[in-house]
């Protein structure tokens, strides 16, 4: 038991580790993939939104630069507009787009949507509002130095919130631009008046003057990515675990099925073996039975010959003694007559012995019948045979109401005849003879009792009571062959019961026997 558990525990542990570790690894790998894919999806989505806004702004820039400004210059050249007129509100694309974005954010706010930070940053702005900070300045230089790079993006953290920062190079100076951004003296006078400094002037063609940048909150996207990743991972983990458990369950079921099949096979083999043993046993029983039957036949033959052959010489002795007495009485003196009497009584005693022995042998081998027996009626018959009422003083019989039993009528009658016969015999010398018969139900069997107040017996000889030829009294005191109680015991045993006795010298005896109900 201990060895077994010590053997199985490490195996169980590695099994559990296998079951847990493998799904965890797979889940982690899958979760990484999902996270990567979702982030890419959400980021490109956010980028698209940003580009949308930027391109829309750029469209407006372009409209101002390519449509409104040429119209303005044309009108000025035609002197439809005063040469000194300049207003950033209607002529500066930077100013217009910046303010347009303020309105955009106002609309966003009204719609309950997050505001979008927008900045056009320049290293050389007219309005200090558009002045690039250090980072933005370096970004403008970066774009100018790496002309193939068309965009820059970065996820940045501001006050614990995540934003996607996106910037594109802007305002590549061309010859048209130089009308307002070239030398100060070349710019419209209105512009010159409005911006007294050098900001926005002295630009060179082919150079990016600025960047446009947008910062968009992406906390929701990140949360969505995380939640989706976690929920998908958990789902996948559960599926993997289920898959593994299912696999293990299948293995266990097939193991169990195999072991059950093996067990069934064992049982089948055991049954075949039992059948074989049974048939062997039956054969042996049959052999033994036939041996017993032949032994029984021999015994019967022996009894038959005893009954026939042993009785014949006894009869002859008795017959010739009788003839001797009746024919030759005159030739015998008193002693001679006594001898002849003794010969006759000995022969008679031997005849009784042989008859009793035959009776005893017959109780052992006779076929038993199983019939309902009325004990009271049976006892009355036996008493009638034993006590003709001539004894003086009369025997006092106390017979209780007894239950019916099942058994062989003739054999049970023999039991009562022997027990009650003994009671009658051993109360013969009593002044008052009392014989009681009673019954009692104990532990599933009926106990019958015959009690008398006769000469009784010494309990130290109780073991000899039921033996064949065992007698506790001399032939002169009480005649008998010593077979009666042995016969009683044999009959009761054959009925599945027991016999025993209690007694005290000169204080009566009690004989008990049981019969199963």
């Amino acid at each position, binding site marked *: 038991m201990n060895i077994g558990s010590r053997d199985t525990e490490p195996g169980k542990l590695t099994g559990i580790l296998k079951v847990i570790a493998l799904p965890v690894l797979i889940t982690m790998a899958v979760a990484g993939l999902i996270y990567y894919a979702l982030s890419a999806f959400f980021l490109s989505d956010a980028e698209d939104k940003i580009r949308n806004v930027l391109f829309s702004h750029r469209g407006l820039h372009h409209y101002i630069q390519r449509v409104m400004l040429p119209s303005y210059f044309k009108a000025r050249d035609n002197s439809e507009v005063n040469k000194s007129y300049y207003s950033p509100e209607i002529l500066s694309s930077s100013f217009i787009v910046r303010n347009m974005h303020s309105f955009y954010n106002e609309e966003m706010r009204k719609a309950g949507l997050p505001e979008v930070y927008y900045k056009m940053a320049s290293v050389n702005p007219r309005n200090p509002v558009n002045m690039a900070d250090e980072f933005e300045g370096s970004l403008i230089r970066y774009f100018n130095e790496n002309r193939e790079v068309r965009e820059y993006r970065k996820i940045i953290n501001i006050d614990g919130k995540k934003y996607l920062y996106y910037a594109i190079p802007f305002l590549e100076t061309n010859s048209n631009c130089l009308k307002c951004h070239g030398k100060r003296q070349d710019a419209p006078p209105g512009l010159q008046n409005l911006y007294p400094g050098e900001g926005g002037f002295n630009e060179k063609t082919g150079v990016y003057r600025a960047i446009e940048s947008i910062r968009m909150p992406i906390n929701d996207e990140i949360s969505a990515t995380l939640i989706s990743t976690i929920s998908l991972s958990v789902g996948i983990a559960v599926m993997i675990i289920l898959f593994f458990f299912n696999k293990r369950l299948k293995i266990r079921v097939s193991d169990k099925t195999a072991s059950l099949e093996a067990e069934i096979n064992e049982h089948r083999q055991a049954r075949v073996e039992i059948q074989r043993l049974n048939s062997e046993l039956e054969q042996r029983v049959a052999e033994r039975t036939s041996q017993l039957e032949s032994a029984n036949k021999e015994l019967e033959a022996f009894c*038959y010959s005893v*009954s*026939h052959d042993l*009785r*014949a*010489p*006894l*009869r*002859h002795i*008795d*017959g*010739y*003694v*009788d*003839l001797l007495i009746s024919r030759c009485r005159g030739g015998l003196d008193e002693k001679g007559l006594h001898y002849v009497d003794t010969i006759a009584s000995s*022969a*008679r005693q031997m*005849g009784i012995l042989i008859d009793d022995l*035959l009776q005893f042998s017959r109780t052992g081998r006779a076929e038993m019948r199983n019939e309902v027996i009325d004990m009271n009626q049976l006892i009355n018959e036996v008493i009638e045979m034993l006590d003709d009422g001539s004894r003086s003083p009369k025997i006092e019989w106390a017979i209780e109401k007894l239950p019916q039993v099942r058994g062989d009528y003739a054999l049970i009658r023999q039991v009562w005849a022997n027990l009650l016969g003994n009671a009658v015999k051993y109360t013969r010398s009593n002044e008052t003879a009392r014989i009681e018969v009673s019954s009692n139900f104990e532990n599933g069997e009926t106990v019958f009792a015959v009690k008398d107040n006769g000469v009784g017996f010494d309990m130290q000889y109780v073991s000899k009571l039921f033996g064949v030829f065992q007698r506790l009294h001399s032939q002169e005191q009480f005649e008998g062959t010593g077979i009666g109680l042995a016969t009683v015991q044999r009959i009761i045993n054959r009925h599945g019961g027991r016999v025993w006795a209690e007694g005290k010298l000169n204080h009566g005896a009690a004989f008990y026997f049981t019969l199963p109900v």
Partner: protein
Amino acid sequence: MSELRPILLAEDSPNDAELTLEALADNNLANRVTLVKDGVEAMDFLRCEGAFSKRKPLNPVVVILDIKMPRMDGIEVLRAIRADPSLKAIPVVMLTSSREERDLIQSYELGINAYVVKPVKFAEFVDAVRKLGGFWAVLNELPPENLHNH
């Protein structure tokens, strides 16, 4: 009444034969008792064959059979008597020391007229034989002898 029919006693034991004859003699029967030693002799007597071929063909008033006899036992004699049309009407009595049930049953199945167990006590034996002889030899009326086909 012409000649008295005999009594046939089949008994192999000379002691039993003597005691039975004594008992029968106690009855003061006039019938002659013929003693044979076994079943074969009994059948010879009944069929007037062998040693008894010169005998006057007259069926006995009763046949008393012991069961255990050499050559042919009492049961076989009884069977042969009952199977023979000329003998089957003869009263047959088993006088035996056997108390075995099968002997008793077999005898009655073969149509025995009486089955008497020899008592050990001679006085009782005499009494039994007296009753037997008295009844079968004196009281019992037999069918007319013309059934006898000799």
